[in-house]
């Protein structure tokens, strides 16, 4: 851990890169959850169509 800390302290641009990575991961997790919701809706709609027939 200590060497990583020293590395980041001297090359502080990598801290900014880690931060950008965190933001991307956050947006990705949000999209993943949204996708799950849309899929649920889709399944619901499909099963309703089946029932209509």
């Amino acid at each position: 851990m200590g060497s990583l800390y020293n590395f980041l302290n001297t090359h502080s641009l990598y801290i900014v890169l880690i931060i950008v990575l965190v933001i991307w991961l956050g947006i990705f997790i949000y999209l993943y959850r949204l996708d799950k919701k849309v899929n649920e809706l889709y399944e619901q709609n499909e099963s309703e169509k089946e029932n209509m027939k």
Partner: protein
Amino acid sequence: MKKSWMKIAIGVWIAAVLVVGISMPIGHIPGLGAKARIIYFHVPMSWLAVLAFFMSMWYGIMYLRRKDMKHDIKSASAAELGFAFSILATLTGSIWARFSWGSFWNWDPRETSIFVLLLIYGAYFSLRSAIEVEERRATLSAVYSIVAFVTVPFFVFIMPRLMTGLHPGEGSPAPILNANGKMYMEASMRYVFYASLLGFTFLYIWLFNLRSKVGILSYNNHSEIE
């Protein structure tokens, strides 16, 4: 946001902000160095957390006036996104604080404010999950978000009395923002910063529209079945 070229433009715009923000040389900033580039990515996150908080209250008021469930869905969507962005602002901020201030959490005034914002969002969602009747849930959560929005500005006045700030511009060396809130950034840095704010704001609007559409669809589906 109906036209697809706007969404592509958001994608290209943010990509450009990322590239320029990381690669463009910035002048020598005492004590911060390359870490100053966080302003391009961290500040937009906290700005979106506050914007979403405002929008959640705004659609809450609209719901109380019109009693249209769409407004409640929009209010909840804004709160959900705001929660996500305040988590991002907290995470990015505390990673940065580890290297600039020595520890992940320091109870700086702005850290305290974002902590309170997280608490409010948490309270808002636990209130929503505790009420089953839809109209009642919508009314009470709208009322709560208004009360929360009204009390939050007091932190702006009370915080400086209790603690001194650590954020750049609040301590004695003021490399980026000075005490009057005036910008002391180089012009080139300022342009990138504004461009980033603009890009992320549009990204937020897109996500917000997407989330509320999903919410409205699932509400319609749900009421059709009954």
